[in-house]
């Protein structure tokens, strides 16, 4: 039951009503004027105020205003004279909850009070719900804040660069790792740049396409890219990206970047030191080779001198041939060294691969037949004129065929038929396949592994160790590949695949 304040200047009414209300179980305070009523109100804070409208001094409307000022939640019920609808409406406009007409009938009063009590209860509950809700929101907000702070810390402290975008590709997260790689500060990037301004073009394009398609895709595998940084430098980085989804809708993307500069630097250092070691080996090998040439030149000039002294044309010719041969070896060596050290691919031109191979075979024919080695030509006749690096093909084939003949000559096995087969065929519409297969001495796994990696010769003083290196370099520059299979004692097969295009006229 409620705490009530009853205000009326007619004491008899106050008495009768208060008896009736108390008997209903209400806690009733009374006052006989507006002023007194407000005093009691301040002291007792009743839930419901019942006030007469017409009183000497402060009237009911004024009491209503003051009470609402003091506590807007208070239920104020106005008691009006019979037919005074005008005052009743004014009171309702000023926030009164209800009104009852004089003479006040018990049942009407009871219903009015009940309604007031219900409103009070409802308001109470609403307040409790609101407070609960506010509490819950506060707790949830706190939780969210903590989580997002934690994520912020994760992203900030990550060594990898993390770049996140919204669904349009606009950048919204750019961590210090990313600042280090891209060279931009986060203030320059966040909400100011799009992935297409920041990512390497191929990545940006791929990303934009996926964003547009909105297909569910897993993160991409790590791949290496060259990142164009702010200062114009190119930074090598590993990249993996993913689209972010919320209920099948793309809401953004995230890219992870790994700085590979340190690793690249170390790799280069390693290659450099390996190269230096290889150069050490080469210098020894080269010195040996040059010593042999020198031997030939000195010997040749000795024989020439003898021929001059004796007027012996035979000696002169033999000596001069020695000199010429060794001059030839010097120029071969210099050519190999230059090819190896130069960074330039061979020029493309119209040529007939079969004719090039035929020329190589003819060049090697003398040495081969002197050593009972047969050179077999298997050129696909359909190969006509094509556009490719003729010089590279010639040099590479010459090196391989010459090696194969050597492999046969230095084979110690008895009763073997030594053959070098030179095959050319189309591998595809844009690839030619050259094969040089010999039945010579073959090589060990160890030798095979070293073939293209360093200056490496198994021919004692008779090789520079440059031949295969040069071949490898030429083939690579030409965009081709070279493969080797070999079996010790049985022979080796070298396969070169080189791209070609149609001859242009």
């Amino acid at each position, binding site marked *: 039951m409620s705490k009530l304040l009853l205000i009326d200047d007619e004491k008899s009414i106050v008495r009768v009503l208060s008896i009736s209300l108390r008997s209903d179980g209400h806690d009733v305070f009374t006052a006989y004027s507006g002023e007194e009523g407000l005093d009691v109100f301040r002291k007792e804070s009743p839930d419901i105020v019942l006030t007469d409208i017409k009183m000497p001094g402060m009237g009911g409307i004024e009491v209503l205003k003051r009470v609402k000022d003091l506590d807007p939640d208070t239920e104020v019920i106005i008691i009006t004279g019979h037919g005074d609808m005008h005052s009743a409406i004014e009171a309702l406009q000023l926030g009164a909850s209800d009104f009852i007409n004089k003479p006040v009938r018990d049942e009407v009063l009871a219903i009015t009070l009940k309604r007031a009590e219900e409103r009070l209860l409802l308001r109470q509950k609403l307040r409790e719900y609101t407070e609960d809700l506010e509490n819950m929101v506060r707790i949830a907000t706190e939780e969210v804040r903590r989580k997002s702070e934690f994520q912020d810390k994760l992203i900030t402290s990550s060594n990898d660069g993390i770049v996140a975008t919204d669904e349009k590709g606009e950048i919204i997260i750019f961590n210090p790792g990313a600042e280090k790689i891209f060279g931009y500060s986060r203030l320059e990037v966040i909400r100011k740049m799009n992935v297409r301004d920041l990512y390497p073009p191929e990545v940006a394009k791929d990303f934009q396409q996926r964003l547009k398609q909105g297909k569910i895709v897993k993160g991409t595998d790590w791949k290496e890219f060259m990142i164009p940084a702010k200062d114009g430098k190119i930074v090598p980085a590993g990249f993996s990206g993913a689209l972010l989804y919320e209920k099948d809708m793309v809401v953004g993307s995230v890219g992870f970047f790994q700085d590979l500069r340190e690793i690249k630097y170390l790799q280069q250092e390693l290659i450099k030191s390996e190269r230096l070691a290889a150069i050490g080996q080469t210098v020894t090998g080269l010195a040996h080779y040059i010593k042999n040439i*020198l*031997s*030939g030149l000195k010997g040749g000039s*000795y*024989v020439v001198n003898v021929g001059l002294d004796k007027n012996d044309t035979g000696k002169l010719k033999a*000596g001069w041939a*020695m000199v010429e041969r060794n001059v030839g070896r010097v120029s071969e060596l210099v050519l190999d060294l230059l090819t190896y050290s130069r960074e330039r691919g061979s020029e493309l031109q119209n040529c007939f691969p079969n004719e090039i191979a035929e020329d190589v075979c003819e060049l090697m024919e003398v040495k081969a037949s002197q050593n009972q080695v047969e050179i077999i030509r298997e050129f696909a006749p359909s190969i006509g004129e094509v556009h490719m690096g003729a010089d590279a093909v010639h040099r590479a084939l010459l090196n391989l065929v010459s090696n194969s003949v050597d492999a046969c000559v230095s084979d110690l096995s008895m009763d073997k038929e030594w053959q070098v087969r030179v095959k050319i065929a189309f591998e595809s519409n844009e690839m030619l396949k050259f094969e040089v297969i010999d039945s010579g001495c073959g090589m060990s796994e160890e030798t095979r592994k070293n073939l293209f990696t360093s200056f490496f010769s198994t021919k004692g*003083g008779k090789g520079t160790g440059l031949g295969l290196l040069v071949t490898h370099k030429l083939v690579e520059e030409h965009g081709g590949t070279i493969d080797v299979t070999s079996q010790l004692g049985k022979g080796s097969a070298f396969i070169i695949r080189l791209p070609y295009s149609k001859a242009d006229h």
Partner: protein
Amino acid sequence: MGNKVLVVDDDPDIITFVVTVLEENSYTPLVAKNGEEGMVKIAEERPDLIILDVLMPKQSGIKMYRELKGDESLKNIPVIILSGIAKRTFLRSQEALTEFGSQPVPEPDAYIEKPVEPEELVETIKKLIVE
């Protein structure tokens, strides 16, 4: 005609050169371009001295040298090793073969590393062929 000297080398330049040096100094040159041919020439001609290369196809100079020194009737023919590889390397290869169970062989009578001066070659031959 002077003493017979057999040159075993696979390099035609070396052969032309050594043959010329020998002719100039009144020796009779014989030629073989590998170990197999060399052994045949030795049996046919009984040379007074052999000039031998080490690295050759078919039959290496190392093998031929061991055959010569292991043959009672041939081991007294003086041998000059004329090679592009260092004397040290050659001797080590001989030691290695001995360690693997082959009969030990004496060191060559002379060892000349290429490139060789004609005078050095002639001096060495003169020292080794005792009339």
